[in-house]
Structure formats: C-alpha cells, structure tokens
C-alpha cells in the first residue's frame, strides 16, 4: 500500500477551516429559510385556499422527486437566462433552502396534525385567536413531536451542502477538490474531510440533544 502522507494536505489547514466555516454558514442559512418555508407552508397547506394548497403540494412533490444537484443546476445555470443571476454561494443557499423547505413542510405538517383537535378547541374556548392558539397551544408540543425527524433532516442538510461544490461554491467539499488538485493526495484529502464531516455531525447531535433537553422540559406520558 502506498504510504500515507497527511503533512502535505494539512499545510492547507486555513483553506479547510474556511471550508468548514462556509459549510456551517450555508447549513445555517438554508436551515433558517427552510424552516421558515416549512412553518408557513405547513400552515398554508392545512388552512390556505385551494389553489395555494395545490401549489405547495406541487412544490413538495417536485423537490422531493428530483436530485438536489439538479435543483442547484436549475438555479445556477437556468435562472440567469430569466435575469436572476446569483453567485455560487448564494445560489447554493437558495437551492438548499428550497430543498430543505420541502421536507420541512411535510415534517411540520405531521407535527401540527399530531396535536389533538381538543387542544385547539380548549384554546379557542378561552377566547384566544386562531393565531394565539397556534402560537401558544399547538406550536411547542408539535415541535417536540417532530424534533427527532427535523434534526435528522438537518443532518442530511449539513451533509448535502457538499453538492454545492459542483458549482464551485466554497464549502468544505470544494476545498477538498481544490487541495486534491494541488497535492494529488486523494485518499488523505477525502479521509480528512470525512473525519471533519463526522465531527460536525457528532457535534450537531450533541447540540440538538442539549437544546432539546432545555426546550422540551415538560413531562409527557409514555
């Protein structure tokens, strides 16, 4: 077996660090906007007028049945012909928001559906508005019910940012291809970023567990 040589690769530590920061930034932006799409979409798909509901369902099906890479290409290569020109990094953020949003709608919708109608009735009978019932009665228990699925979807999003390297957005996977082309140390480079991805995922799990334990403190019947 060929001798491993990480030294050459590790000389690019600043580039890797830059890649890590950008990957996290991209994930955070897509998570934020995706969750926003998810909450608004889930509420509208349940209560909106029929044309809006149909439109949202079409969006969900379109996104969930096509590869994220194609979605990225559409935004980066096809949108410019419609006059919407975005740099690689913002393009990737938009594509991943739209991608994550479609899954988030479905997950959040299932969370809202998991809250018994009697809870909504109890809130309405106290004279709360529909929005107040959603915000103060439904939302927190619904979030608790979907927390495991939404966090695992967030992990998939974090790993999914690697597709952005295909349009040369500067995230971790892109850094890897760049360093590989300079050093020709393919195995070392990809072994290193694999370890970094694993570390990021483990760290995320720990953060999710801590946040979950803090946010969902009320006892539930099992």
């Amino acid at each position, binding site marked *: 077996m060929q001798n491993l040589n990480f030294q050459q690769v590790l000389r690019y530590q600043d580039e890797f660090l830059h890649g890590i920061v950008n990957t996290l930034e991209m994930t955070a932006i897509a998570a934020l906007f995706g969750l926003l799409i998810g909450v608004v979409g889930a509420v509208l798909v349940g209560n909106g007028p029929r044309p809006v509901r149909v439109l949202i369902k079409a969006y969900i099906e379109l996104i969930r049945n096509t590869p994220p890479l194609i979605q990225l290409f559409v935004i980066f290569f096809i949108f410019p012909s419609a006059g919407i020109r975005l740099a690689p990094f913002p393009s990737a953020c938009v594509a991943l928001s739209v991608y994550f949003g479609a899954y988030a709608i479905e997950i959040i919708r299932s969370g809202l559906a998991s809250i018994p109608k009697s809870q909504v009735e109890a809130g309405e*009978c106290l004279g*709360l508005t529909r929005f107040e019932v959603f915000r103060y009665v439904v939302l927190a228990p619904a979030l608790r019910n979907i927390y495991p699925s939404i966090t695992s979807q967030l992990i998939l999003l974090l790993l999914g940012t690697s597709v952005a390297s295909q349009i040369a957005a500067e995230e971790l996977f892109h850094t890897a291809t760049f360093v590989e082309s300079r050093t020709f140390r393919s195995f070392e480079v990809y072994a290193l970023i694999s370890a970094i991805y694993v570390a990021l995922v483990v760290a995320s799990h720990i953060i999710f567990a801590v946040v979950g334990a803090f946010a969902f403190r009320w006892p539930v019947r099992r």
Partner: protein
Amino acid sequence: MALVEIKNVRKSFGALEVLKDVSLTVEEGEIVTIIGRSGSGKSTLLRCINGLEDIQDGEIFVEGQQVHAKMKKLRELRQKVGIVFQAFNLFPHLTVERNITLAPIRTGRVSKAGARALAEKVLAQVGLSEKIDAYPEQLSGGQQQRVAIARCLAMSPDLMLFDEVTSALDPELVGEVLKVMEDMASRGMTMILVTHEMAFARDVATKIVFMHQGRVWEEGPPSELFSNPKTPELKSFIGSNH
C-alpha cells in the same frame, strides 16, 4: 332577559340529525343538568352553546348575543363562557400557572405582573394552591380537572359549561371535582352540565333536562322529574341508573 336562549335548534352530522328542534332557556343563577342516554344529543347541545359546533337551523343567544355569528363576536362571547371537558384538555407544555394565566394575559384582563396572583386566587378556590408550578402530567386526573375549572374561573365567566367532567376519572377522584362544582353553584354561578352523576343532578341542579333522540323530552325541577317522571323513556332511564 334569559342568560341563554336556545330556539328551535337543528344540528346534523351529515345525514344524521342529532338535534331536532331543541329549545331551552337558562336564567341567570340556574344550574341546569342535562341527562339522557349516550347519543341523545346532550353533549352536542352543550358544544353548540359556545359555538364549538355549528347549527343548521335555529338560533342560540347568550346574554342576548347570537352565538353563531361573526368569529370576532364569538371570541368575545367565549371569554364570558367557560367550558370544562371530559378529557381536561390542559396544555401539557405549560405549568399550572401558565395554563391558567395564558388566556387572561392574552385577552388583556390581567397584566403579566398580576397574573400569578390571579392564578393563586383561582387555585385556592379549587383547593390546589400548592400545585401552581406543577405540569399537568404530574397531577392526578381529579387535580387536572380542578385546574381546568380554575382556568375557566380565571376568566371570571358569567356561565360555565361542564361536558361530562367526571366521566374520565377514577371513582375515588370524582368527589373532589363535584365538591368544587358544588362550591361554585353555592356562589351563584350559572352552570349547564351534562352528567351521569344522578345524585349530583338531584341535589345541586335547579332544573333537569332529559334529552331523548335529539329532543328535549322532559324538563323541570329535580324533585318533580325524579319522583314523578311523565314519560316511559325517562322512567326507564331513571330506573336503569339506580
């Protein structure tokens, strides 16, 4: 003016008509108990009074205001009409205090600063002062139901509706809830109850309404109705409950 006026109400679930031309008047201070077999429409009637169910025909007035009208009006009305459910329906993610004070704070009846005092006051009325910081799941069924009653009391309602509030409780927990309701009755609260607790109906109610097949079959003071039922249906219903 009567506090509640139900006029010729019809209500259907699909092809099934569950309320057939129901009329009923409840005066202020009355304690009306609705009894009847399951499926007779008594819970549905109660739920119509605060607009939880829509109606196909007829009218319902509470304090002279039409229930089945605009949503905003209904919301104002609901702040004056408390309802307690069979399954308690406390909010599991909120402490007892927050369960009680959520609606009073949101509807502007109490400031955030004054909210705890309000919770303490109504919890004292149901004998649960020490549970103010507990979560619903940490309470027994009877305690949860008393918190649900306290949550309504915090809105200082003019009318309280009780929908089989002891039916989901273990037998030994029924008494504590009934005692709270007796307390409220003795303080002059207007109450409409759907219940299977015949002893409570006889001792506390000022009027009994017997429903059968979606109609008010018989109504009158408990002494009269229980000792001298006019219809064979009520006779057999009372017989089966002794």
